[in-house]
């Protein structure tokens, strides 16, 4: 288990409660991992091992599933994850230039977290909002459509201010 501080114990408790609520159902691993990532922000090895133990399956099975899906992360991510759609529809509308601008504004490489831990930038596959291409998703729910490179500083500023 993770070096325990109270916060983690709480998170583990909540995860356990969730697992109990699914008792008896088949094929729940992915649901449990969704919940775990929602709680912890990412899926450290310790959390994966914890899930394996609770569901009585091998840690390698859990790890195999975690690394298979894009949604699950084995690395910590920025507080605000900036996901830039690089699907064909967004690509032809200039998503690559939007990506470049984000990277240069924040001074990071793709997948890296900024020093203050506030942002990380990720290229993702189609987000299913092609009519608004190019599309940027910040966090889980904040969509920005028809993004131009010039809009990038404004978007970043918005989350910097919120973070304060």
């Amino acid at each position, binding site marked *: 288990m993770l070096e325990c501080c109270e916060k983690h114990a709480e998170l583990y408790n909540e995860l356990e409660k969730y697992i109990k609520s699914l008792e008896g159902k088949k*094929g729940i691993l*992915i649901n449990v991992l969704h919940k775990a990532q929602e709680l912890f922000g990412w899926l450290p090895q310790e959390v994966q091992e914890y899930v394996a133990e609770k569901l009585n399956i091998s840690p390698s099975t859990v790890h195999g599933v975690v690394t*298979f899906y894009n949604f699950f992360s084995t690395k910590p991510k920025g507080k605000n994850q900036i996901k830039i759609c690089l699907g*064909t529809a967004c690509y032809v509308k200039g998503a690559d230039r939007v990506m470049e601008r984000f990277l240069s504004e924040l001074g990071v490489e793709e997948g890296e977290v900024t020093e203050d831990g506030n942002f990380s930038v990720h290229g993702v596959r*189609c987000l*299913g909002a092609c*009519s608004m291409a190019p599309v940027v998703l910040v966090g889980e729910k904040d969509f920005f459509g028809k993004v131009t490179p010039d809009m990038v500083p404004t978007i970043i500023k918005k989350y910097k201010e919120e973070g304060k």
Partner: protein
Amino acid sequence: MKPITVLVSVDSNSVLLGAREFYKQLVELVKEYNFDSIVDVLETGTLGNYNGVTIAIMPDDVYYSVKTKDEVYKIFEEHILKGRKVPELEISKQKIITYKPEKLPEEYKIVTRNIGKINPKSIEEYIANDGYFALAKALKMTPEEIINEIKESGLRGRGGAGFPTGLKWEFTFKTSSDQKYIVCNADEGEPGTYKDRLIMEGDPHSVIEAMIIAGYAVGATKGYIYIRGEYFGSVENLRKAIKDAYEYGFLGENILNSNFNFDLSIRLGAGAYICGEETALLESIEGNAGRPRLKPPYPPQSGLFGKPTVINNVETLANVPPIILNGAKWFKSIGTENSPGTKVFCFAGNLSSRGIVELPMGVTVRELLALAEGASGTSNLKMVQTGGIAGTFINEEKFDTPLDYDSFANNGVSLGSGVILGVNDTHCVVDIALNVMEFFRHESCGKCTPCREGTKNAVNILEKMKRLEATKEDLDYLIEISNLAKDTALCGLGQSFPVPLLSLINNFKEEFLEHIEKQYCRANLCKKVEKKKVKSKFKL
């Protein structure tokens, strides 16, 4: 009903443009002016306008497109308070429903019949528009009669593969088992495609109703909707719809006193394109990594948890209630002989109008492009990709091909999931090919060699070509890899990544050769690089 109804479109595109705030603003204004008893403000699905948020005022039948709160206020003040139209914000109804020259075939709404008309969160409104009538009718029919009706209608899978839906149901019906399942494939991950999202956001009950009918027809008592985790709006509307359907007795035990039971739940995907492949999707529901299974056995024999399973796409299912209500003969009268019915098309890329339209099968690419008003800006359309990322890239020569399930075999133009993606002449074919192959390399599950190694090698060659270093042999090898994967890959993904690649090479061979022989790129995007090995810019 109150004398005035204001409809606000709150589909995912409108939400991006501030629809939720506009909706709230209107609700507050109505309260502030004490209009509660005469004005109803309701949410609805997409109304076909993608340049602003659509606000419709009924019964006046006036449609506005708004972008700011001031504009919303203006409409409230002028139209609702003073009863005067606001011409500068008005869009014609014609534009909303059809946006096309009169010569073109009429949009025919089956799948999208309720979208933009009803509040997707209200089961009452769905019922008021003949919702769950098909279920009531189906429960009085025998399973064989239902399956025959669907078979007779000629409905085929709208997810891309085009397998006859009635046959799927029949195979599942004929396999005996203590438990069978109905699965709705809502893992829409095909770049350029967003129709299922708009269907689920705008009319979730039609999918649910169809799944219950399918369950009754094949003898399944459990259903799963496997949906992309990113589709928050769809998930929210579906959850609410399922809850309401239980409350009204359309789900659960003894549905409409028929002794038939059916339970439905939602499973969230976790971001893997391959999970749109039906057996990979089943693996994922079972909690495993989504790698496709070897077929046969097919899901109707051995599917979810080893039990007989029907897997249908969202759009396919949304066709079922109208077929049950209106009959196979009616359905067959629409579209073409081998491909009856309609198709929902999604416009994407460099097209000036982007959105979904539903048209009878057999519409041509040119007609669709006319609807989308051609290329945007000053650049011209260079090519169109039809059918999704696994679909074909075509040039103008093939724009008159009617799109249906035979157009790929006959003319090399995919129908696929109905994407019409425009690409203008600022783009280079090699660069586009690289973008597409990067996607497939990333999404290949790695189970079979032709796909795992083929996509990787294709990316390498295209990177070389982008550096203007490729040779004729490289191009030949690229074609060889593609043909090999087409013949030998395990699943639909591996067999279809060659489709976009080969269509690009075949239709734009000259441009590929220019990169090789003259080290020249028309769009000036591919350049020589001093140091070796410049990876494509971003890894997906």
